[in-house]
């Protein structure tokens, strides 16, 4: 590509820009700040699949106040980066969960709540359930039937620790 100044650039301009942006984002100060920002802005999407949703609501309520961890329940999946599978997941609801998960922007995380999220719980060996870890990449499991709000808060802290330790992989979008 010939420019007016007489320089010649070889290769795909968009690809070069993307690589440069990726290099910059992976550098230490920006990466640290970005991970810190993600850690304290985990917004879960409102997706109540079962009775654990009551405990989820109690966690965000004034008594346990999960918002102090940056945990703000939000309505639309497009603005959220965390998904809590609240209890058992039927096959029909599993499809909806997959659609909601696909709509969320990267980077995104999944927490599975209750023994139903682990291995079916009281619905173990049923014809109509699916385990969340079979269809979604679950980061943290919370055992309990249902788990106490403290346990949910603990899971949020564990996820924050995990992000701090392992970092988040973000695909930088370069070019136009």
């Amino acid at each position: 590509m010939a420019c007016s100044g007489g320089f010649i650039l070889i290769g795909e301009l968009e690809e070069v820009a993307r690589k440069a942006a990726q290099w910059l984002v992976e550098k230490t100060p920006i990466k640290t700040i970005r991970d810190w920002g993600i850690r304290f802005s985990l917004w879960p999407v409102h997706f109540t699949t079962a009775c654990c949703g009551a405990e989820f609501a109690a966690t965000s309520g004034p008594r346990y106040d999960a918002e102090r961890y940056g945990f703000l329940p939000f309505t639309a999946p497009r603005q959220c980066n965390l998904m809590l599978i609240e209890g058992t997941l039927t096959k029909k609801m599993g499809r909806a969960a997959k659609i909601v998960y696909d709509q969320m922007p990267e980077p995104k995380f999944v927490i599975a709540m209750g023994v139903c999220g682990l291995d079916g719980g009281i619905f173990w060996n049923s014809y109509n359930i699916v385990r969340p870890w079979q269809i979604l990449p679950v980061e943290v499991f919370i055992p309990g039937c249902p788990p106490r709000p403290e346990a949910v808060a603990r899971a949020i802290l564990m996820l924050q620790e995990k992000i701090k330790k392992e970092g988040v992989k973000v695909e930088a979008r370069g070019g136009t």
Partner: protein
Amino acid sequence: MKLEEVLELLKAALSGVECLIGEESGIPTVRVHPENLLEAAKKLKESGFDHVKSVTGLDYPDEGEIEVVYHVSSYTKPELTKVIVALKARVKRDSPKLTSLYGIWPSSAYLESETYDLMGVEFEGNPKQRRLLLPEDYEGIPPLRKDFKIPVEGVDAVE
């Protein structure tokens, strides 16, 4: 209202319909042939039973039949509010078809749909009949039938 009084009332209400009235495990029961189900339901509605409490299917694989049970009761007649009557009809297991009672008791719409979903009994004339609890594209044996095999999991599972 005592059981004997309910049975007397049922006998009076269902005169002219071919049916078997009796008491089964404490519940006044009316057994009818599937062809007479609609007529019996109409007569019951006229005598004050105005809603369906539940619709269930019972599978009898040895006899090759499925028994559909309607539990009916009343809101409008004070003496019938505490009475529950079972209306039973048996259909063939390989072609389970029954006339829907949606036209007589609208509260049976979703209950019949659930029976269709889990037992595979088809109700002709029910507008709400579709996959309700199972995935929309579910195919195969309905899960509450006796010959439905659930996968063996846990310590009993064979590799």
